[in-house]
């Protein structure tokens, strides 16, 4: 798809199925949305959302005074094409937040594709758990 990035692409957004951090226990759903198609040189808007799907407040721990989130874009062969936090060095402070029932937090960033191909995109939220929260991978097709 050439040009028209923005409103035209919004119809093509793909939203990764929610990730339940500890299935059956945590009410938090972590999802990603990104356009399914774009072209080289057009920025790809990526949105991560953390949603409290329960009717009770849910406590979550986040890295950073300003919450740190990562986005990884991988080529089909698994090679990393872009990583938001690559080579970042930041403070190891932990933030405690309570999400109200139904509350959603979201984070945005943009990726600029430099080569055509099929890519996969994943969002990551570091915390104090051994494994960070990860969204499902979603696919993005980049045309020349």
């Amino acid at each position: 798809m050439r040009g028209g990035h923005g409103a035209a692409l919004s119809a093509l957004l793909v939203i990764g199925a929610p990730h339940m951090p500890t299935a059956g226990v945590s009410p938090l759903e972590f999802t990603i949305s990104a356009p399914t198609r774009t072209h080289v040189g057009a920025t790809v808007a990526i949105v991560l959302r953390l949603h409290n799907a329960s009717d009770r407040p849910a406590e979550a721990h986040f890295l950073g005074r300003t919450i740190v989130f990562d986005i990884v874009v991988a080529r089909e062969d698994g090679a990393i094409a872009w990583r938001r936090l690559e080579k970042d060095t930041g403070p190891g402070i932990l933030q405690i937040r309570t999400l109200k029932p139904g509350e959603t937090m979201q984070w945005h960033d943009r990726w600029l594709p430099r080569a055509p191909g099929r890519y996969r995109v994943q969002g990551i939220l570091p915390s104090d758990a051994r494994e960070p929260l990860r969204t499902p991978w979603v696919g993005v097709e980049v045309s020349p």
Partner: protein
Amino acid sequence: MSRLNPLRLIVPAALVAVAACQDTTSPPAPIGARVAPSAYAPQQVQRWFDVMAREGLALPGTVLADYDETTNQVVVGVEHAAAAANVHALAARLGVPAAALVVRQMEPIHFAQTLRDRVDTRIGGIQIHFGNFLCSMGFNAVDGGQPSFVTASHCTNKQGGVQGTVYYQPLQSVDGVSIGTEVEDPPYLRRIAGCPHGKKCRHSDASRAAYNSGINSALGQIAKTDANSPNTYSLVLNGSISLSGGDPRDHFTIGETINKVGRTTGWTQGQVTATCATVNVSRTNISQICQTIVENSVQIVGGGDSGSPVYTSTNALAGVLWGGNSSGTLLVFSPLKNVQDEIGPLQIK
């Protein structure tokens, strides 16, 4: 664990099982006579287990209840003979045959205290709480006669400058009595030697808080976990490490092994890969001058480890951890020398 099925093992609410096989290392002799595997229907014995778990564990001195599939018996663990007598009496009252019951004396099971729990005598490496944030206590120090602890500068209400940050341990919701108040946190400045253009700098990400009166702390002690080797991420507290002193260096040797202990990843270890490096703090206008970088192929730092004490292989205090990379395989610490250059001389043991 062959004799205690975790799905069928119940401990009193006041106790916590630290390991499901706690009682299998050196099985104590049963108080009651040992009996042959019972000939009752397993479903019947399980019903007796249910009732003994519900009623028996309400008795003082009981430790656990288990349905032992190998002998088809109900096992009740007790702390002492008086509790055993009460359990036998209860079983008789509930119609549980003696042949289907084993009462066994054992040690009570306690909470395994972790770096994230309340630790009454405060030592380096345990969790501290302020505002909406968690960090690790660095190390205890006396400054001008004032009992204190050092943590990261960014583990204050505002990085650089004293705002009187009030600290709790481990959480205000767990212990509402504050342990200390921020008293020293030098400002970040633009015009100091080595500071990159457009940045504000210091040589250490460290601050000092004065302990409130009545708060116990142990000078020269940092938390020791129950791990036998580093990078296992155990958070279970097992005493403390005595610091041998303070390491006076601001340049560490490339390849040197460095340790830290903190509330998120426990005792971890890596090797120095850069020394006296100026490090930009991600997405801020802050640079830290003359910092040490430690790396490993596995995770050695996580969110909440900020402030952790960093120490050498001879247990000399090397500095204060303040950051890392996103995958946690790289940590950055401010050398103790820089901390003392900015905060002033500290008695650390």
